[in-house]
């Protein structure tokens, strides 16, 4: 028999209840601290492991590279061609490129697309070509893609020239088991998106989206490499971009493959993103560098924006990364030209060609602190779960406060022993109506803001900023009406129940003395049971609800999009846990202001102050990302984050008792 079983059930409940009330708030703050420290420790070297290739079939860099000096000359010739046609209108340059691919002997075609968002209109033409691998059955394919526009907003000349040169190189070989598709997409991300949709037979023919069906196809796409080599010069280093839409990540083996090739067959300096960091032995500097790289990744994951066109593939279960040529004059590493790039790409394609199965090793969840170091899900998941649990603990203690159920015992005399039993009911009534109504209204308001922001009304002078102002107006109306209604209601209850209250206080004192003396007087027991405590304050119920929902959201999101969950969790944990209505109005107002600062519009202001100085630009960017790529940022903000925030603002402004 265990220690706890010696006690009666009621006593156990009492102990548990006391624990909840006295320790849980403290414990939850401790957990928040632990979680924060853990998160900050993640970039540290001791928390990350060296990457390794998990899929044995890949065999990176083991095949001899065929890309030779003649191919390099061909690439340079193509570079001139691409440069010449780059300035042509979309349709003409797409057709010119189609001819170039056809001349190599590949099946090539173009695809028109139109995309009309609420604010902008896009039209473009993609070019694509398929290299049918001889001897293969064409059930599988690898994609090499490049956009006309580099991430530097210049022409992606070298990348497109490289695609043509590689097409020529591959045509010589007969060792490919998968078809290779070359895609040169127009526009920013919408071009490749239109192509991918059409490839998977999901093309639309509406006014908003029109995508031409594809004429040439191959099999199921197994992996994709997106090239971004802007300009016509040489490069210092190769950057890898991997964050996809809504924080999806490609299999780490994609990065590992490039990593091994860049160390062996085609030596180039490799880095994450476009940051070049000098090597250092200094522990602090190393830590800060890792932290910065990790934050970069988490930032893009949290807002759900891909860092390149590779991000669009992930939705279709195609692993993809972007290879970016970094041109940083003055950087110490050796510069490399198209010859090296060609060898690297050919080796990478050969490696992916080796795949017998779709990449499936458990390598989809990771944080990279360096191109060769990763933190696995087992290490980064606990802090966000601890954060979620701290919310729950706080909510539980509040829930306990609003009742006396586990604390108050009455004694039943049976023969010669007294058995303590719990009261079968709570003496303090929990009025959940106000809290649930407020929360419900907040969610409805959030939905309304989403509707306002994404619908086109066709009014004169309609702009995203105006819609946001309208949304904020709707929200403030909710806050004002809810808060004033609550205050008025408290006043009415107060004035209406003065007489009752006086009697209740009398009973209260009598009851408490009775229970503390723990006598077995049946009259007293009745007294304990009969007396009614004042119902729990509305703000306690509302705060309990907010905290419970926050825990739900943070833990659920952590599985879907870790970075978003961490950002939300870290942002709201302290305000939501610590803030409560104060007797001093000033404190309440300060709390409300802080909550406003972390509300979606507040965060938008902060972001615009940090980046572009123009809030409307940030807003239209969010809207565009939602409409074109379908990122979750706007829906999450409107349906989840903002309602909680509104409820919290209402909570701190509610009357204290």
């Amino acid at each position, binding site marked *: 028999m265990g220690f706890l079983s010696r006690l009666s059930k009621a006593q156990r409940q009492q102990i548990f209840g006391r624990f909840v009330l006295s320790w849980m708030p403290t414990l939850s703050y401790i957990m928040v601290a632990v979680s924060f420290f853990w998160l900050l420790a993640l970039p540290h070297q001791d928390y990350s492991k060296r990457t390794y290739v998990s899929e044995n079939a890949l065999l990176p860099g083991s095949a001899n590279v065929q890309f030779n000096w003649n191919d390099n000359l061909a690439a340079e010739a193509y570079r001139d061609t691409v440069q010449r046609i780059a300035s042509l209108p979309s349709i003409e340059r797409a057709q010119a490129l189609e001819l170039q691919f056809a001349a190599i002997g590949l099946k090539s075609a173009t695809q028109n697309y139109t995309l009309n968002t609420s604010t902008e209109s896009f039209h473009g033409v993609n070019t694509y070509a398929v290299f049918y691998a001889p*001897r293969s059955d064409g059930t599988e394919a690898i994609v090499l893609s490049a956009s006309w526009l580099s991430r530097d907003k210049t022409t992606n000349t070298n990348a497109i020239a490289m695609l043509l040169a590689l097409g020529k190189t591959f045509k010589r070989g007969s060792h490919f088991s998968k078809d290779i598709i070359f895609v040169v997409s127009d526009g920013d991300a919408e071009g490749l998106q239109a192509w991918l949709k059409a490839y998977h037979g999901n093309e639309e023919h509406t006014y908003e989206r029109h995508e031409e069906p594809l004429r040439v196809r191959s099999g199921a796409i197994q992996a994709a490499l997106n090239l971004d080599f802007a300009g016509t010069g040489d490069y210092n280093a190769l950057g890898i971009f991997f964050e996809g839409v809504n924080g999806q990540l490609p299999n780490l083996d994609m990065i590992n493959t490039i990593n091994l090739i860049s160390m062996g067959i085609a030596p180039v300096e490799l880095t994450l993103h476009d940051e070049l960091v000098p090597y250092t032995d200094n522990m602090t500097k190393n830590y800060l560098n890792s932290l910065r790289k990790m934050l970069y990744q988490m930032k893009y994951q949290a807002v759900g924006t891909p860092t390149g066109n590779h991000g669009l593939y992930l939705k279709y279960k195609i692993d993809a990364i972007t290879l970016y040529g970094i041109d940083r004059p003055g950087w110490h590493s050796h510069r490399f030209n198209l010859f090296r790039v060609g060898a690297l790409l050919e080796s990478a394609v050969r490696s992916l060609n080796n795949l017998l199965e*779709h990449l499936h090793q458990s390598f989809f969840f990771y944080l990279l602190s360096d191109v060769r170091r990763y933190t696995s899900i087992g290490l980064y998941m606990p802090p966000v779960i601890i954060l979620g649990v701290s919310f729950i603990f706080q909510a539980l203690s509040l829930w306990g406060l609003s009742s006396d159920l586990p604390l108050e015992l009455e004694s039943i005399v049976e023969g010669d022993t007294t058995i303590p039993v719990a009261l079968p009911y709570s003496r303090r009534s929990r009025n959940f109506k106000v809290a649930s109504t407020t929360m419900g209204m907040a969610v409805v308001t959030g939905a309304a803001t989403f509707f306002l922001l994404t619908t086109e009304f066709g009014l004169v002078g309609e702009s995203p900023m105006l819609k946001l102002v309208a949304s904020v107006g709707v929200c403030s109306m909710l806050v004002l009406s809810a808060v004033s209604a609550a205050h008025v209601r408290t006043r009415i209850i107060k004035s209406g129940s003065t007489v009752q209250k006086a009697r209740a206080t009398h009973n209260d004192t009598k009851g408490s003395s009775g229970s503390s003396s723990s006598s077995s007087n049946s009259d007293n027991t009745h007294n304990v049971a009969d007396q009614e405590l004042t119902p729990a304050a509305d703000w306690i119920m509302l705060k309990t609800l907010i905290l419970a929902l926050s825990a739900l959201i943070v833990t659920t999101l952590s599985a879907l999009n870790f970075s978003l969950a961490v950002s939300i969790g870290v942002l709201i944990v302290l305000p939501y846990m610590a803030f409560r209505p104060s007797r001093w109005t000033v404190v309440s107002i300060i709390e409300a202001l802080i909550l406003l600062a972390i509300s979606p519009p507040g965060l938008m202001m902060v972001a615009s102050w940090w980046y572009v100085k123009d809030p409307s630009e940030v807003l239209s960017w969010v809207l565009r990302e939602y409409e074109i790529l379908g990122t979750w940022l706007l829906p999450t903000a409107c349906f989840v984050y903002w309602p909680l925030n509104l409820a919290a603002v209402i909570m701190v402004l509610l009357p204290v008792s």
Partner: protein
Amino acid sequence: MRASSPCLLLLSGAVLALSAAASTTTDTIPILKAPEAFHEQLVLKPLNDGSVYSHFQFTTHIGTMMDDDHFDGAASNLFKHYNLFPRSIGQILHSFEVEELHLTFTQGRWQYSDWGYPLAPSAGTGVELWAWLNDDKRQTDEHWKGLTNTLSGLFCASLNFIDETITTEPKLSFRNEGLYNTHSVPPTHNNNNSTIPRRLRYGSLPHENVCTENLTPWIKLLPCKSKAGIASLLKSHKLFDTRFYSMAVHVRSVCEDEKCRIRSLELVQTITAVFDVARHDGSFDWSLSGLFEREITQSCPLASTSKVIVNLPQTADIENQYSLVPHPPQGIHSEGSGDKKQDIAVYDLQKVLPETTTPFQLALHWEGSRPKSARAITPGIVAHRYFTGFGQERGGLAIEIRNNNSQDIEAVYLDTLPWYLKLYLHTFNIQLNGKSLDNQRDLVQKMFYQPAVDRSRPAVLEMALRLPANSLVKFTVSFDKVFLKYTEHRPDANRGFDVGYAVITAQLPREQGQIGYGGLDHLRIYQEREAGLVQGRRSGNREEEEKEGETDKMRVYTDTLLVSLPTPDFSMPYNVITMTCTVISLFFGSVFNLMMRNFEVVKPAPKKSGKGKEKAEKTE
């Protein structure tokens, strides 16, 4: 000396055949002369994209020596003696009562829009096997099983995997190809009153790789193996380094005379390969020794005919862009007229080779190593099939059939889908030139649909279509993907499952750029007994030819597909997690129990409370 022993063999064979004929003349059965014969041909054709198409065809005949009234098919005493006909095939036909057998191994994809149609009738990637079996004793399924297993052993291929979950019985496609069956001869013909019930069995393996181990047994079926004749060019190193490689065995009964009084069993072995000659240096020039890295030093002594036929390139506008070396001794034939004109050069190896001591050489040189202009190819029907949608839960199938002819085409579409794709026929939708079609009757004239049964038979969709002139017809249908039992996944579970091709059978008007002139049966083209090779064939089948007009029966194959089903994570971490979780839950359960469970005796009633309490104390 080398040639003498086969000659002797042939002589002895002839003697044996004669003696056999002599012995049977005593019976009342009238005997007609049908000699055994072997023909070998190689057809070469340069393709527009620089590839060279090569088609080897070896035909072996074995006479049935019986007339209509007494013919009893494969079960006759045909398979008692073998000279040229391979015994291994004969025994298979005999023991499984096979009327007609077609087995094709293919690697790579046939590019219809670049290359037109192939001479060989089957071009679907993987292995295709179909047979008409005698159903006299209702043993078709057993025989089919035996047949697949035996062929599997004979050709070193996984044909035994064609089990009942793959096998189908098409209703409209894959009709008999033999000449005296219901399909080829008008019903009024007296041959048609055959009462022998026959059943069709069809199966394909889309992901079967073809390699040397399949080629070697195939070569063994030839009378001269690869020692002499055209077959000596078959070097596996070169053959399997091509863009398309197909190897087939066809067995069927054919008529030997116009009235079909004499019949014989015909074994046709074909190898089709498309060489990419322009791969290395971009030059379209080719030579026989360059393509195969081997030479023909002598024709097969057992062969009745031994020919190399070159379908010369169809150039547009500019004449004399190329030169063929050596020039054919009999000059160049021309077939067709206008745009459809096809020049043909024929080399009779039995005449060419004895004249010289050097091996047979053949080369084609382009002026400037590349053609200046080529006549574009527009194949009559091109089909394209692909999966739509993404994710592992549901998907869709889309089939696009483009009819480039200026007339309506009757076609039969056959699609076999494995049972783990649950088709929803109510989602079946037809689009004609991009517009959804309400009245499907005009287009789909007949439709057979066999729903799949889990783990026992595939879904079969067969449609008789009328494709409007110059149109694009698109069918779409949705399906759900089944969650398989974990033991049903292959070792490479994450690769997905291969779904075989769809087949479109159509009677197509003869088009320009089409390789060969098939007619009803492509295989009979080059096997005339008379010397006038191509012309002879046409005169022989003139009646039929006129009736049919200038049409060819073609089968168009779509590409095979890969479908990814919901796959459990079979990886190591998954196993570790499941193990650990199980252990932890067991451990936690028992420990929690010990900690928290309170053993108490329930007090029965207030009166007996004293006794109950004592017991409670004892337990504590």
